[in-house]
């Protein structure tokens, strides 16, 4: 085998890296545990901040990989081993893949919202996650309460499972702020009569055109932003919800009855990684995500030569940044394969 690499994970980062490496003439094997590639992004309807369809991005990447890259889908990797500068990836059906280098692009899991019990996810009918709402949009499902009513008031709750010592996640998930703004606009578009409230601690509009979307949400859609983190939620007899918080800008405790609560769930490290990477003894940060060798000059490298990490396996990242990161990774892999090892 000559100049070969295995890319584990067929999400945005994995597909990008696989496509780029293939164009550079490297023999690439891409492994994706689901039948359909695209990762979390495949569940998205439209992307922030421009609200272009997610499908556009994914089909571009599929063109780069389909028929050019040897792809194994529908089978998760159970174990990765490194022996005498060769990598071995074992799939769940027993298939064994070998390569001179390996790119880990296994991404992230969504935070399990039921861990924030006081928010009532899984307990009350009308508490959903941002991922579920995105799924409704994608499947052209109308925004309705569980018993089919058109909600007249919807609350978006920011930072669910992120920046929260009480679930052990001190980090910021970066994309939820802008996701919340995008989805608030979309709810308002779907239901112009509905009042939409966003409960936030900070709105981190860090990337290009993010702040502008926030501006637009206020100016054109009348989204209400309330600076207060949700404390607790209770359910009325009619299955409407009471959200309790402090309106910190007026300094008063606040109660509001809403028909639908959307929890903006953050990123958590993939639980499956633990077993898969056990033998490689990779270093994780305090946040549980994989730690690169050098956060500036080697942010795709690991302690094992030939093993690269890219995308959300290193922590929360936007799609645009995951693409850029994966391209950089491809270059790193290429120069590794062509170096005198």
């Amino acid at each position, binding site marked *: 085998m000559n100049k070969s690499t295995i890319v584990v994970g067929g999400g945005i980062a994995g597909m990008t890296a696989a496509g780029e490496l293939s164009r550079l003439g490297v023999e690439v094997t891409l492994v994706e545990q689901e039948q359909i590639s695209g990762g979390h992004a495949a569940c998205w309807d439209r992307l922030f901040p421009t609200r272009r369809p997610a499908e556009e991005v994914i089909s571009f990447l599929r063109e780069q990989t389909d028929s050019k890259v040897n792809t194994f889908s529908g089978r998760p990797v159970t174990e990765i081993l490194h022996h005498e500068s060769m990598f071995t990836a074992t799939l769940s059906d027993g298939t064994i893949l070998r390569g001179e280098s390996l790119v880990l692009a296994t991404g992230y899991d969504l935070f399990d919202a039921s861990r924030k*019990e*006081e928010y009532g996810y899984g307990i009350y009918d009308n508490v959903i996650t941002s991922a579920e709402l995105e799924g409704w949009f994608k499947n052209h499902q109308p925004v309705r309460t569980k018993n089919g009513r058109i909600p007249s008031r919807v609350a978006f709750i920011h930072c669910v499972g992120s920046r929260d010592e009480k*679930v052990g996640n001190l980090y910021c998930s970066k994309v939820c702020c802008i996701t919340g703004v995008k989805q608030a606009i979309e709810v308002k578009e779907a239901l112009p009569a509905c009042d939409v409230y966003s409960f936030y601690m900070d709105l981190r509009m860090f990337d290009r055109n993010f702040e502008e979307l926030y501006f637009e949400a206020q100016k054109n859609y009348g989204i209400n932003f309330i600076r207060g983190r949700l404390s*607790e939620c209770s359910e009325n007899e009619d299955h409407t919800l009471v959200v309790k918080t402090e309106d910190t800008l007026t300094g008063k405790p606040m109660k509001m009855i809403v028909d639908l609560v959307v929890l903006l769930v953050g990123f958590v490290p993939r639980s499956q990684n633990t077993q898969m990477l056990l033998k490689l003894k990779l270093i994780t940060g305090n946040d549980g995500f994989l730690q690169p060798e050098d956060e500036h000059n080697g942010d795709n490298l690991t302690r094992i030569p030939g093993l690269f990490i890219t995308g959300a396996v290193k922590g929360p990242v936007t799609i645009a940044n995951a693409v850029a990161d994966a391209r950089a990774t491809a270059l790193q892999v290429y120069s590794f394969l062509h170096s005198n090892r």
Partner: protein
Amino acid sequence: MINFNLFVLPFSLGLLYLILKIGKDWYKWITTLSPVDKVKFTSGIRNPIQILISLKEVFFEVLIHRKMWKRNPLLGYMHMSFALGWFLLIVLGNIESRFYSGTHLNAPYYPIFLKFFIHDKLVIFFEVYAVPRFFRFIMDLLLLYILSGLLLAFLKRKKSKWFGMKQVTRYQLTDHVALTTLWLIFPMRLLAESFTAGYYGSGGGFMTQPLGNFLTWIVPLPTDLVAYTMWWGYSLVLGIFFVTLPYSRYMHIPTEVLLIFFRNFGIKPKKWYSGYSDTEVHSCSRCGVCLDICQMNLAGIHDSQAVYFIRDVRDKYVSEQISRKCLVCGRCQEVCPVGIHSDSLRLIKRRELSSGQDADYSFVSVSTVRTAEVVYFSGCMSHLTPSIIRSMKGIMEVAGVSYLHLDENRSICCGRPLMLAGKDRQAHDLVEFNKKLIRDARAGILVTSCPICYRVFKEEYNLPIRIQHHAQFLLELVRSGKIPLQSMHRRIIYHDPCDLGRGSHVYEAPRELLGKFSDLLISKEEKNNALCCGGSLGMFEADHQQRDLMTNGALDSLLTFGPEILATSCPLCKKTFGKMNRVPVKDLAELVFESIPDGRIRSASGSVSVPFHPELSSEAESI
């Protein structure tokens, strides 16, 4: 024959001082008992049966050290050799000395230094008789017995693991002086007696005589002078030990006797410091048994364990910080061989040190809207675990119980969190508000989902109705067939919340309840030895990382046998364990609710609540 020599003075003066000092302390402690306890004490000492019971306990605990034996045989042997060995040495020494002096009125030092006074040649006469030979044998045997214990005590400081202990207590100066002199007493006695026997060539037992002969042979000094010096040394170490004893941990020896009497007279810890507290504090032997079991070790806290806290109380130097650096989980009380109520003492100090700030709860308005058979008080914390509340409501609907959720929208705290901060006076107001609300509901039972509330309802509220934690309430509902359960075949481990388990002794109800629908596993540390979840409201001085370390420690123990679900019966435990995301954590109420067949829940929802009459069986009361 004048049985006196100058060297007996250090011993005699030391002993006199000790007796006077103990007398003074005991007098002070007895007279500063609370008025109720004073009555108990005066009637107790007039009751021969109580005296006999106390003496029996003194024999088993102070001399035999039964609890130490149960803990670790080596530890038991060590303590018993010192206590029983020395005690018998004194008693038999007295009897032996009477045999020689022919009088019952010996000076106190006479039996102690007997071998010095009876070395004259006439005594050889007694060598041929069985009785003096028996005494010589038995006294040497006792000395050997104590010396073997001494060897173990020495080893314990070096190899504490052999004694089932990882840590040993850090001592103070007085402790070191007392310890050193105590350890020297018996070797000095051995040397003094041996040299004397060696010099005179008779008078020793199976150990002292050959040893004396040997020493006389190898020591190139005038043996009579060496022997005399040894007697001085023996007397001096005894004297110094007696004088330092009241200021060292060894004060526990006489004090524990008084404590046993107090306890058998029915005297219990009070809310404020009294003579009883003093007695408990001075009964602490600083054995260090409470060190290893303390979960604060995991958080790197090593200065506030019960033994150090009690030492600080005794030295009248307790910082506010130390008093508040404790989970108040009660594990140390459970293992204390002396039975010191260290949690009560901790709370007493918190009360003393609490700031004088009064509370102002005038904002609370109390009015109950309606009456019901069951008053359900979910507790403040349960509002952050709504699944518990929903399950309880669902179950009560299925069972057809008419209930009033007292703190559904606004909760008045039960008061225990204030009490744990030493603010009992302020808590009183809240207790009164809640009592009024509960009384107005005219219910037969008060059910709560929170062990913290349950304990304070039981201990402080004095309510004329039944009080149940939902573990007990649900068990009764299941027993009476009001809620049908289907087995869930899950491997469940149960965690005892501190205030429900050790605090209120409710161990069996939750286990019986879980056993009805799941495969309940046995836990490594359970019931009165259960670990605290780490979230305790009694702890003020641990940051979240320290708490996490304690929580993970408890989880390590609970997950040993690989349960699928960790069950508990406290919203605070649930939240605390849930944070770690290591195992699904569920409350008993949730598990019961999940085990009710679906059909029953549907048919019950929307139905009108019917009055509920609990079966008041004696069995149910005892859970």
